[in-house]
Every structure is written in structure tokens, then in C-alpha cells.
């Protein structure tokens, strides 16, 4: 028992009527305050059941749930749930209610006056990057999947709960949008410092999102509970090793973000450009590529010497910039994007799309070598 634990499950068991085997067996789990705890495991391991035991969507058959020092195992479940944000994969926005009404649901249940609810709705919409003036009066059917998920998160944060429960929140979203939503959510969490329990079956997502990870096996037994770094470096048993699968080193790339690294300088020129300026930039560049920016500082094209040999106008020369990375991207995200880039180098941009610096493959290989060294030491230690 640590002081850090905000929610504690003590000896919690769930046996469904008519079954012998418990779905969750005598689980002890500490949920640290202000951090993201990811519950991850193969399907059917009881991770969703465990999550739903916390807000008593599923009533435990035995054990106790301690919420901020208070035993909530038998308090009014509806009142308990108003203190806990809840996000599910299918989101479940109310289709007959506007976005503002959806987000204001819990505040209104708690009896906030309408001015306070309105102000809170606007604040939350801005927080998730949606213009209140545009979206307040819209209906859920008018939103894209990514927007709906943002509103889902905003709605869960409605009455500023201390705890968020998220059940595969980004599971039904296309990979590119999912990546962006994960990044946005991490940025949000760095400000909000909520206590979050996050369920996923995807170990990569777990490593990316989790401050702590609990790897669960059947009946929600904890196979390992530790930081992502420690789990990757020291899998506690064969089950965890199997679950991490091959490529544990590659998964290590999820641990570091582009923002943690020192960006390299790429020689840049701002359009409209002259032939001389381009030539100068290319000569300064270590690999012969220079980056052209538009007047807002957004990367537009990669230029090398062959581009200059062509007859076309300089503004059309070279290769269009197709992928950029963001500071919140993990190295794994970045690697995937860089493999798509013609130059083997990616431009890192801020949320407004303006150039911040370059990321070279060497940065990643350096980090991989570091991970490899750790892995070798671990195996040596294990064999000793």
C-alpha cells in the first residue's frame, strides 16, 4: 500500500452467475494518482471487466474498492460514476443531443447552473482542439470518427473528474488519426494530471500511453506491473515475454518521443528561392538535401542537386514533403514515417505545421544501439 495509490482494488473477485471460473480472481491493484495506468493483455483476460469493476458498471462478487481513501464498494453507484469519467471504444455520444448538451451531461446531473455549464463546455471544446462556435450546436452525426472521439473525451472530462476510465478509446479509429489522438491526449494529460486507467490489447499503445503498465493474464491475474521501460528491459516471466512478442527492441522505440531528442539542423530556404540560395543550402547539407519552406515556415519540398539540373521552375523542383513528424510522435511512429520519406530524413513540425528541425535515421539507430546494449546486459544477467 503506497500513498501514491488513488484507487485500490483489494482482493476483488467477479464470478458471473452460472459460471464456476471467476472472470476476475482475487485481484489486488493499485492505481497511482495523476498517472496513466494501462491494463493490457490478450483478449478474454478480464481487462475490460476489471475496468468496469472500478466504476461498478459490473458489481464485484467480493473484495473492496477504495477510492481516494473511501470504501466505495457499496455506495450509490450512479453517484460514484458521476465522479469518474468514462470513455468507451464506441464512444456512445447521445445522437439526439447537441455536442454542447453531450459534454454538459454530467455537470447538469450535478446541478451546475447553465452559465457555468456553458463556460465549461466551451473550455472543454477548446481543450480538445474544436472551435466552440462551430461545434457547440452540431449533432454527433455531423462529426468524423476522430472528432467524435475528441467529444467523447471532452464529455468524460465534463465535471472535471479526478479519474478517467478509458476502454480501448482509440481502438476503432484509423491508424493515422489514432496516432494524432494519442499524441493530443498525452499533451492534454501532461497538463491535467488525471488518474487514468486505460485498457488496450495493443502492447505498442500500452508502451506509448502508459506511465505504468499492468500486463494481465487470464482471470485478470497480474503477470507484471511496472513502468514500460522496466517491462521491456526485464520481462518478469515467459508469459510477459510471449506477450511482448518478437521485436522487443523495436517496441522500445515507443518509449522515446521525438521531442526528447535533439533535432538536427537541415539547411532551409524560404520560397520564393533563387538558384544560388538553393545551391548554397545544398552545399551546407551533410547529405545533400535541403528543405524548402513556404512563407509561413511550413515545409514544402526537398531539394537536392539533381533537382537543380532539371529545367522546371525551382518552386516545382525536387520532391514534395509528404510526411512530417511531431514532437509527441514516438520514435517508432517517426521511423515508420521516415521509411516513407525519400530522403531518409524527416522534418519535425509544431502543431501549426511550422518547421522545428530535422530527424535523421542516425538519431534512431543511436537510440536502438543503446536499447540493444541494455538488452544484451539483461540477457547476460539472466544467464549468469
Amino acid at each position, binding site marked *: 500500500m503506497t500513498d501514491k495509490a488513488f484507487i485500490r482494488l483489494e482482493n476483488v473477485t467477479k464470478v458471473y452467475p452460472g459460471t464456476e471460473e471467476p472472470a476476475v480472481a482475487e485481484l489486488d491493484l493499485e492505481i497511482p494518482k495523476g498517472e496513466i495506468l494501462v491494463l493490457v493483455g490478450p483478449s478474454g483476460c478480464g481487462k475490460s471487466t476489471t475496468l468496469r469493476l472500478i466504476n461498478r458498471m459490473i458489481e464485484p462478487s467480493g473484495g473492496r474498492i477504495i477510492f481516494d481513501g473511501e470504501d466505495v464498494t457499496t455506495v450509490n453507484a450512479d453517484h460514484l460514476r458521476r465522479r469518474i469519467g468514462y470513455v468507451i471504444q464506441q*464512444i456512445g455520444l447521445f445522437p*439526439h443531443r447537441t455536442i454542447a448538451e453531450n459534454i454538459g451531461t454530467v455537470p447538469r446531473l450535478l446541478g451546475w447552473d447553465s452559465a457555468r455549464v456553458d463556460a465549461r463546455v466551451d473550455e472543454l471544446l477548446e481543450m480538445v482542439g474544436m472551435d466552440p462556435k462551430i461545434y457547440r450546436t452540431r*449533432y454527433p452525426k455531423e462529426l468524423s470518427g476522430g472528432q467524435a472521439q475528441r467529444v467523447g473525451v471532452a464529455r468524460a472530462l465534463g465535471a472535471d473528474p479526478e479519474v478517467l476510465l478509458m476502454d480501448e478509446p482509440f481502438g476503432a479509429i484509423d491508424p493515422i488519426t489514432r496516432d494524432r489522438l494519442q499524441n493530443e491526449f498525452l499533451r492534454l494529460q501532461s497538463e491535467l494530471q488525471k488518474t487514468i486507467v486505460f485498457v488496450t490489447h495493443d502492447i505498442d499503445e500500452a508502451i506509448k500511453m502508459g506511465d505504468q503498465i499492468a500486463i494481465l493474464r487470464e482471470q485478470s491475474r497480474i503477470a507484471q506491473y511496472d513502468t514500460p521501460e522496466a517491462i521491456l528491459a526485464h520481462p518478469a516471466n515467459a508469459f510477459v515475454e510471449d506477450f511482448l512478442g518478437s521485436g522487443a527492441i523495436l517496441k522500445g522505440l515507443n518509449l522515446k518521443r521525438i521531442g526528447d531528442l535533439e533535432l538536427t539542423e537541415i539547411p532551409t530556404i524560404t520560397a520564393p528561392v533563387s538558384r544560388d540560395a538553393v545551391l548554397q543550402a545544398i552545399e551546407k547539407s551533410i547529405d545533400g538535401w535541403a528543405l524548402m519552406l513556404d512563407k509561413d515556415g511550413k515545409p514544402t519540398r526537398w531539394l537536392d542537386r539533381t533537382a537543380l539540373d532539371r529545367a522546371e521552375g525551382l518552386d516545382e523542383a525536387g520532391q514534395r514533403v509528404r510526411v512530417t513528424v511531431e514532437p509527441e510522435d514516438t520514435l517508432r511512429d517517426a521511423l515508420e514515417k521516415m521509411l516513407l520519406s525519400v530522403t531518409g530524413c524527416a522534418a519535425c513540425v509544431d502543431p501549426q505545421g511550422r518547421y522545428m528541425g530535422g530527424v535523421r535515421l542516425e538519431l534512431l539507430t543511436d537510440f536502438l544501439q543503446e536499447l540493444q546494449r541494455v538488452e544484451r546486459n539483461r540477457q547476460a544477467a539472466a544467464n549468469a
Partner: protein
Amino acid sequence: MDGVVSFFDYLTNNLDDVMELTIEHAIYIVTVMVAATVVGVGLGVWVQDKPVQKEVALGIASVFITLPSLALFTIFIPIVGLGFWSAFIALFMYALLPILRNTVTGLAEVSPAVLESARGMGLTSRERLWKIQLPLAWPVIVTGVRVASLLTAGIAAIATLIAGGGLGDFIKDGLTNWGFRLAAEKIWTGTLFIILLALIFDGIFGLIRKYTTSPGLR
């Protein structure tokens, strides 16, 4: 042409009767709709998460609607006597099925994810019913009431046979005096005004549906 002229003559000469019986007929529709909606929706809500009761309720309502109307109108005479109440009960039994069935269907169509998130946010079961389930099922329920009102407008013509009044009086009168003067005009008057009433109620429920359904559901 003669037939049309004499029909309009008949109509203008008997306007008071026509209005009185049309109102009687409309009263059947309105009262039956109110009663059948309260009972049908209430029953639908009650049985929605009880599979056995749901089947039983739908089964019984289906039997009601297959009973021959003439028989159904007479069954209750020994209990409540001739006139309005016998007819009212029979019409109520007919109207029940479309409303009950649409309530059950409408509630079943509410997405489980919506209910899950509502529960997860701490809406009590009563709040979920009134704020989420019924508003979402509402367009389907109103459609059920609309169908029931058309059904009632037509079948209420039989009320006349058990002294229940309504526009059926014209039709019965025409039939029993077939071959005599104005018999056809009477039948036409009854039929035409029943159709008119049905169209009016259809229009009203169409408007109710349109203006009471959230724009988010359209």
C-alpha cells in the same frame, strides 16, 4: 352529374348531423389514441428487457388484432352495455399492437454503446429512460401511434352496430335503406368523412413526429 349534385345537396341539408357524427368519430380516435399510447408505451417500456413478458405481450396484442372486428365489438356488451364503452374497448384493443410493437422496436434500436455510456456517466435508470431511451425511440413510437390512428378511424365505423354512434351511422343508415332515396349519398358521406378524418390525423401525427424529433435524429 346528378349523383354528385344530390350528394352535395344532401351534405348541405344535413350539415349539422355530419358535424355531430364526425365529432363523435373523432372523439373515438382521440380517446383511443390517448389510452392506447399510455398503455402501449408503458407496457413496451416495462417488457423491453424481459424477453418472456415481451413475447407474451406482443402475442396477446397480435391475437387482438386478428379477432374479427364484429365479434370484438360485441364481446363487451354483456359487461359494459351497448354504446360508447363497448366500442372504445374494442378499438383500444386494436390500437394496442402497432403502438406496443413500435415502442418495443424503437427501444430495442437504441444503441447499446449509447446506453453503456449513459450508465457510465451516472444517469440513473429513470434518467436513462426519460432522457435517452424514450427520446431516441420517439420517432418510431409516434409512427406506431400514427398507424394506430388510421386503423381506429376505419374500424370505428363499426361502432354504429352496437349503438356507438360515429360516422358509421351514415353507412348503416344507407345500407338498411338501400334502394330508397338518398341511400347512396348517406354511404358516401360516411365513407368520405372517415377518409377525411384519417387524413387529418395522419397529417397531425406527421407534424408531431417532425417537430418533436431531435434534429440529430433526422
